Structure formats: structure tokens, C-alpha cells
């Protein structure tokens, strides 16, 4: 026994060392592009610079303490939580319905619909937001025309509607992307399962609930995690719309915008780094919890 356990351990150790050579290209790039920036951000967050006078002081965790009582940060955080809770389910259900419809083989020109629904994802967020911003205009835009037509008073760019309007843009952009994730999940379901279901007398809806949705669980978890990350990082859409309504979309509208304006507007790089790190940790924790829950239900 003793002699047989000795040899493999030796060879494994040798393998380990040789393995580093193969890992090195990745490890170096990973360290430079991933670990180093995070390290730099963490370092930044422990200091307090004075941009105008060049003083730098080590302040330990002061920036973090400040952040936890910063209502501007937490109100932005709450806003993206609301966004997450409302927009993400709507978007994913729409994407799911679209994927199921295209996969159902009952749709004529399914390929055409697939492309059309996916197309908005190919439009850069900047362009999409400018385009929507134009349509949202309540004096001359599409919103103005619709309000005239129906006698309604909907102002997509007002304080009350802004978040919903942003949600609409994001949904429009990403339904197609999520649909593709779901659709590819559906394509890999073995045809034998459908045959068996049909023999057992399952109708189309029974097939959806008993075969298709369970098979999609992994894809749904992945899409959900992407969407959570996307929501917490909400930046482009509100920041571009800000050109139209700077008073409504304040500089602390989302945590990412807050970090952006702190650093590039106010030169408060240290505090901005703190915001970024705290948001990163929160995002990672929530994404991890979702993944764990998704995996547990799956088995």
C-alpha cells in the first residue's frame, strides 16, 4: 500500500509544476487585466486624495464607513433593486415566450421572427437610447403624437415615468439576446422526449411545462444572473438620457453613475473606487445565491 501511494504522488507533483507553464499565459493576462485593477481599486479605496492640492492620506476603512451612511448611494441602489425586481422578470418572460413560440414549429417564418427580435441587441446602446429618447419627447416626439391621438398625458421623461422608460429601452434591447439563450437551450432537447410525451398523450402546454421548462432551468439561471449583473451596472441608458433630463436623472441615479460622476466630475477617485468595490461585492453575492438556488432546484 505504502509503495503504491508514493509513486502517483510524486508524478502528480511533477505534473503540477509543468502545468504552470501551460497556465502561465492565461495567469499573467488574468493577473494584469483582472487582479491588478481590482487590487488598484482596493488600494485607492483606502486613501483620501485631495485633487486640487495633491495631498494623499491613508484613511483605512473611512471611505467604507462613509458609504454605509451615504443616502445618495443607497437611494441609487434601491432604484436598481426596484429595476431588477420589475424589469428583469418582464424581460425574461417575454424572451421565454418568444423562444417557445419560435421553437414550437407552429410559427410561420420563425427564422424571420428570430432575427427581428434579436436585431435590437445589435444596435449599440448609445444609438438605441438616443433613438428612444427622441421617441419619448413629449413636445415633438412619438409620445407627443400618441398623447394627441389618445388624449393621454403620458410623459415618459418625467420624474414618475423615467425609470419605467429606461426599463422599456433595456427590455427592447435585451429580449432578443435572452431569447437566443433560451432558444439554443430548447434546440438541444432530444426529440425522443417529445415522441415519448406525444405517445403519453401530452398536449403542447403539458410538453412545455413538463419537458421544455425543466430542460431550460440552467439557461434561465444563467440569463437571470446576466440580468442581475446588468441591472446593478445600469449606466448607459440613464446616462445618455440624462442629456435630455439632467434634473430627473441625477448624478446618483444608479450606483454606477454615482461612481462615474464622483471620479470624472468630482475627481473623488477614492470614494468612487469604494462605491465600485461595494457594488461589485453585492453583485457577486447575489449572483452566487441565485446560482446556488438554481442549481439546488435543478437536481
Amino acid at each position: 500500500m505504502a509503495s503504491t501511494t508514493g509513486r502517483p504522488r510524486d508524478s502528480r507533483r511533477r505534473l503540477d509544476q509543468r502545468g504552470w507553464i501551460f497556465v502561465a499565459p492565461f495567469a499573467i493576462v488574468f493577473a494584469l487585466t483582472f487582479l491588478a485593477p481590482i487590487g488598484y481599486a482596493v488600494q485607492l479605496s483606502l486613501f483620501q486624495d485631495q485633487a486640487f492640492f495633491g495631498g494623499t492620506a491613508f484613511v483605512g476603512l473611512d471611505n467604507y464607513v462613509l458609504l454605509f451612511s451615504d443616502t445618495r448611494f443607497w437611494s441609487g441602489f434601491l432604484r436598481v433593486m426596484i429595476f431588477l425586481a420589475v424589469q428583469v422578470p418582464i424581460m425574461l418572460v417575454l424572451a421565454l415566450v418568444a423562444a417557445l413560440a419560435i421553437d414550437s414549429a407552429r410559427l410561420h417564418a420563425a427564422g424571420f421572427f428570430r432575427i427581428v427580435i434579436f436585431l435590437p441587441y445589435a444596435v449599440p446602446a448609445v444609438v438605441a437610447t438616443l433613438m428612444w429618447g427622441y421617441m419619448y419627447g413629449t413636445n415633438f416626439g412619438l409620445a407627443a403624437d400618441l398623447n394627441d391621438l389618445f388624449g393621454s398625458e403620458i410623459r415618459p421623461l418625467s420624474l414618475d415615468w423615467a425609470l419605467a422608460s429606461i426599463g422599456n429601452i433595456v427590455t427592447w434591447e435585451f429580449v432578443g439576446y435572452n431569447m437566443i439563450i433560451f432558444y439554443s437551450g430548447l434546440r438541444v432537447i432530444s426529440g425522443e422526449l417529445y415522441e415519448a410525451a406525444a405517445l403519453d398523450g401530452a398536449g403542447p402546454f403539458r410538453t412545455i411545462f413538463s419537458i421544455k421548462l425543466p430542460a431550460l432551468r440552467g439557461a434561465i439561471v444563467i440569463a437571470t444572473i446576466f440580468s442581475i449583473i446588468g441591472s446593478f451596472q445600469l449606466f448607459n441608458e440613464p446616462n445618455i438620457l440624462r442629456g435630455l433630463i439632467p434634473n430627473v436623472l441625477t448624478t446618483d441615479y444608479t450606483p454606477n453613475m454615482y461612481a462615474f460622476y464622483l471620479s470624472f466630475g468630482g475627481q473623488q477617485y477614492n470614494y468612487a473606487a469604494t462605491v465600485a468595490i461595494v457594488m461589485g461585492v453585492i453583485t457577486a453575492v447575489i449572483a452566487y445565491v441565485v446560482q446556488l438556488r438554481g442549481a439546488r432546484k435543478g437536481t
Partner: protein
Amino acid sequence: MTRTPRRKVIWALATSLAVLLAGCSSGDDSSSGGNASPEALDAALDKGGTITYWSWTPSGKEQSAAFEKEYPNVNVEFVNVGTGEDHYTALQNAIKAGRGGPDVTQIEYRALPQFALQESLVDLTGYGFENLEDDYTASTWESVHVGDGIYGLPQDSGPMALFYNKEVFTQYGIAVPKTWDDYVAAAQKLHAADPTKYIASDAGDPGFTTSLIWQAGGRPFKTEGDRDVTVNLQDEGTKKWTAVWNKLVEGKLVTNITGWTDEWYRALGDGTIATVTAGAWMPGILMESVQAASGKWAVAPLPTYDGGEPVTAEHGGSTQSVLKQSDNPDLAAAFVRWLNNDQASLDVFLESGGFPATTADLESSEFRDFSSPYFGGQKINEVLTTAATQVSSGWEYLPYQLYAETIFYDTAGQAYVNNTDLDAGLRAWQDTLVEYGNQQGFSVNQG
């Protein structure tokens, strides 16, 4: 014309690059200008070399080319890194990095104290620039001074005037307002006659607000020495302005279409917005972007508070400055002197439709007598050049004006969204300005 369209919509694009630049910070702070003299400028021009010039002035490229033609030894690399905020983000990053910045840069008057007090700019006093005072209007000359130093030469000026849609005024029997009370009365009359029309649009714009406070005699910002800052947005002049403007904002007599947006241009074109209070660069904007209203607009002096002697304020305008990190400050200063003081350059600038800061050009009969077809043949420069001599003196911007304006929307801007008291909004702005200033090492008093 060179007024910054405030929120250029795509400035997020620059950020990925900016992040990289910000990462390479270093504290290389080579100071220069010890042996500056007017002779050094001529010597530098003879010797030649290469300098970089950052600007978004429409005629910037052409001026650079004309300069190279006159001084073949000098090579000017003209770069437009963006307008307004984009430009300052890039500039700030280069300053923080200690390299990568231009030799000569455009800076708006509002941002000059910020860059001068950070000691990023060369004080041009030694180069004999102090002798050029008579060439410029009093207000722009004041604007290029920070403390005792001269940090640039004025490129253009923006004395404020009242631009109004004559067709709308005639249709509703409204007289051109002489006082702000007249203006409020005109607002009520117009909006009552046609609820889709407004005397003006004001969605809350810090540059506009501060200029009107300036005109009203308010001096909310003061800086003494390097660090002692006073912020007082409740001084008498400021209150004078809010007393008028509250009637318009709280009374919903102004619409809130954000400036420089497509909707704004259209509303200027179809009479929805009947007047614009803006700097003398406004005709260029109207002619270029509001062609629908050609022949309808006219210009008048800014209304006053007492109906007496006309008084106005500067709104926008820029200077060219030399960066301390420049390897060739003598040549850079020589370029600045040529750019904003040599007639060959000024002619190119005027040709592009710019509104000058040089008294000789403002007083030239050719400029004053120009009759603009867009303004129905009105000699608009008579009004505007007169305004240039009537700017109230003693105004100062904050040494952190750029960030102050960024957070204006978060605080004072809320009064515009909710149609509530502007005084309360300005107080909220003041609170954040005091907090930020103290955090950054200034000693901020509330007056």
C-alpha cells in the same frame, strides 16, 4: 458659437479610455516659466518646434494651419478631444497622469480658475501679456485673471442679450420687455393667450443661472488666496434674481425643455419658446440649428431690474491657455499670443461666425453694421457689441466650478422639476458645494 452645448450626449464613450489614463497617475510636476519674457516668444517662433493644441473651436483647425503658414518652422497638431465635459475629462486625466496633455488648450472662462488654482497652467504675465489689456473688453480681460496671474488670452466673449421671436410678439401684441417685471408680465400674457406657448424654456442650467445672478448683481462665489472660498447663494443679487425667476418657475410660465436637445431647437423654430436669454454667440446657434425660424428672430438688450442704465453679464466664452506640463512653454505662449491677438488669426475666427473679445473688432464698423438676413435685416451686432461694454464687473467662478455645475442638477435642478422655490434649491446646491470644497481641502465659508 463656441459655447459648450452642455451635455453632449455621448460623453460616456470616452470613459473606457479615461479609466486607463487615470490608472497611470504620477506626480511629475515640473514647473516652468522662470525666465519668461516677451523676447523669449519671438526666439521660440524662430527656433520652431512642435506643439499640440486641444480645442473644439470651429475655426481652430484653420487657425492652426494659418499659423503654420506664417511660421513654417512650427508644427501645430490640432486635436479636438471633445466638447466641454469630454474635453475637460481628457484634460484632467492628462494633468493627473502628469503627461499626455496638450501644450495649448481651450478652456472656458468658467473653468479657468479650477485649472489655474490646481497650478496646471502657466502664468503668462512674464511674457508681456499684461500689456495687452487694452486689446480686450474689460469683462473678458477680467475673466482670464485668477488671483494676480494671467492664465490665457480671451478667444471670444458672450455678453448676454434677449433674443425674441418677433412674429410671436407681434401676433400677441407683446412689447419688448425693458425690465424683468415687464418680462414676467409678457410671460403671463403670452401663456394666457396661447397655453402651448411660453416666454422661455428653463429646465435648470447652471451656466444660465449663474449668468443671470451675475447680471442681477449677485456675487455668490469668492476665492481669496489659494484655499479660502466663500459661497453665498443668498446674497442680495441672487435674491433679486430668484424673486423674478420664482414667478416664472413656480408659476409654470416657462416650459422645461432642456437646452441643446432636438426638442429645444424645434421649439425655438415653431414659436413654442418665444425668447432666449443667451450670450452673443446665440445668433450662430439659431442660424445653424433653427433654420425654420429664419427671418422671425430679433435681438434686444437684456431687461434690467430698475429700467435704468442697461447692465448685462457674460455667458460662456473661452480662452486659450498654456499647460505647465508643456515641454515648450515659450512656443506655446507665442502661439496663444498669435491665436488671440494677431489680426490674421482673428480674421479666420470672425469668418467662422465667432463673436470676438477684441475691442478693435467689436468696434469696427464692418462688424457693427453687419445686417443679418436671419434676423430680418436687423443690425444685431449693434446690440451685441454695445452689450459687450455693459458687463457688470467683479464676478468670480468657483475654483471647482465644473463639478459644481455637474451637481447643480441634483440640487437646484430639483426646483425646476417640481416647480418649487428656487431659493431652497440654491441653498441645497450651496450645501453640497460647501461640503465638497471642504472635503477637497478648501476652507469654505458661507457668506
